[in-house]
């Protein structure tokens, strides 16, 4: 497999990170977004990140000069229809994603691989928006934030995805220094499923709104468990609302299996707008 021409749709945090990573692999990347301003901000931020890496001596100015040449922006209609891979990284809204994929199916060559960076929707469900001919070339590629640093890419095989394509992409990412993990199209895939208990169990241990206990649990899991962050400080960083939403969607997808049940404190926090760092109050205060 040789991926050279990539289209990334959505210039938010994930889309920008994914575009940056591919440009760093010297792939031609076209970054697409509905908002011109967002595209400008994204490119500025990627350029600034590269310039900082030059200052730190991690990249040469020659390398960064090349990377900048590999990254461009355009409208969806002007993207190269013969691209090798399209990665969708837009808002997590099923109907908006399906409408986009229907359009992508008509715009891009049938050999182009269409993929989604979704963390919450089944790949097979999204693939319903594309033609039968495209379905073997429709796959999930779930990157982790920040995409340039986090090595994992979940390679998700939908029911109609060609198994050879999964293997080829797995090998390609491995060759480029990522740590891919091949997984079935199952709720939460691997990480968002297995990691649920890193939050759910500490919530049940503390069981009520007690900052001192949140701190104790965070300390134990860092000091004794060796985790880089404790669950409560991590939920505050991710956003308690986002974490609750992922927990809730995995729980629903598993027919309300008790192992994934949200904790009452999560809902209370969301209802009282204690979202974490972004609202200056979560499990901890941030004044």
């Amino acid at each position, binding site marked *: 497999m040789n991926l050279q021409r990539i289209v990334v749709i959505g210039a938010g945090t994930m889309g920008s990170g994914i575009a940056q990573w591919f440009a760093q692999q010297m792939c031609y990347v076209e970054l697409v977004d509905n908002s011109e301003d967002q595209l400008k901000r994204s490119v500025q931020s990627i350029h600034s990140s590269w310039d900082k890496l030059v200052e730190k001596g991690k990249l040469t100015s020659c390398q960064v000069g090349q990377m900048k040449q590999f990254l461009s922006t355009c409208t969806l209609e002007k993207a190269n229809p013969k691209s090798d891979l399209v990665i969708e990284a837009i808002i997590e809204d099923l109907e908006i994603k399906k409408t986009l994929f229907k359009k992508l199916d008509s715009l891009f060559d049938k050999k182009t691989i269409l993929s989604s960076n979704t963390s919450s929707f089944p790949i097979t469900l999204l693939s319903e928006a594309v033609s039968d001919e495209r379905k073997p070339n429709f796959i999930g590629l779930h990157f*982790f934030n920040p995409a340039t640093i*986090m*090595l*994992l890419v*979940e390679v998700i095989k939908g029911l109609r995805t060609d198994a050879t394509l999964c293997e080829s992409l797995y090998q390609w990412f491995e060759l480029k220094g990522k*740590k891919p*993990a*091949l*997984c*079935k199209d*199952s709720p939460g*895939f*691997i*990480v968002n*499923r*297995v*990691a*649920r*208990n*890193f939050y*759910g*169990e*500490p919530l049940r*241990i*503390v069981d009520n709104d007690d900052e001192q*206990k949140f701190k*104790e*649990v965070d*300390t*134990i*899991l860092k*000091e*004794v*468990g*060796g*985790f*880089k962050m404790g*669950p409560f400080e991590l939920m505050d960083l991710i956003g308690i609302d986002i974490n609750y939403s992922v927990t809730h969607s995995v729980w629903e997808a598993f027919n309300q299996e*008790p*192992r994934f*049940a949200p904790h009452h404190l999560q809902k209370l926090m969301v209802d009282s707008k204690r979202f974490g760092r972004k609202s200056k109050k979560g499990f901890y205060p941030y004044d």
Partner: protein
Amino acid sequence: MTNYEIDNILINFGFASKEEKKEILRSNSQKKVFMDLTCYDPNEFYNEFPQLKGTFAALFCDDRKKIELHLKEKNELFLQQLTRLEFHPVETSIVSCGFIFPRTIVQIINEAYFALEEKVASKEDINRAMKFGVNYPLGPFDWAQGKEKLVVTLLDELLLKTNDQRYRCCSLLRNDFF
């Protein structure tokens, strides 16, 4: 199990059944006892045995030998002995069945087994995903290696204590133990 006796204190390390642990306490009613209760609920033991002055969870500790410790009564001899054995205790006021780290990690391991049982991914890919997607220091199956008995015992204890099906042990994990 290993017992250390120094003056009037007894320190009990290692895994044993709940009844065996209680038997040690019964036969040492005149001593101050400090006991590893990784897989059980310290509250149940504290309520029954006033000679139990502290509990700890050392069965899941890695090479760094950092362990969770709960003290009802501070005892220098006990702390010195832990230091002599190169343990690094981290004290907590929270008394919970399975403490904090063991209870959290067995749930992560159990879910990884459920995912494996459903063929979501291979063991290697699940380990890899957790290490490189969310920076876990080890993959769930690395953590479980050789400790399946402890994981199953603690999950069964949590289920018994709470009657909450979230602690139901995955049959694949139970099979690995047996």
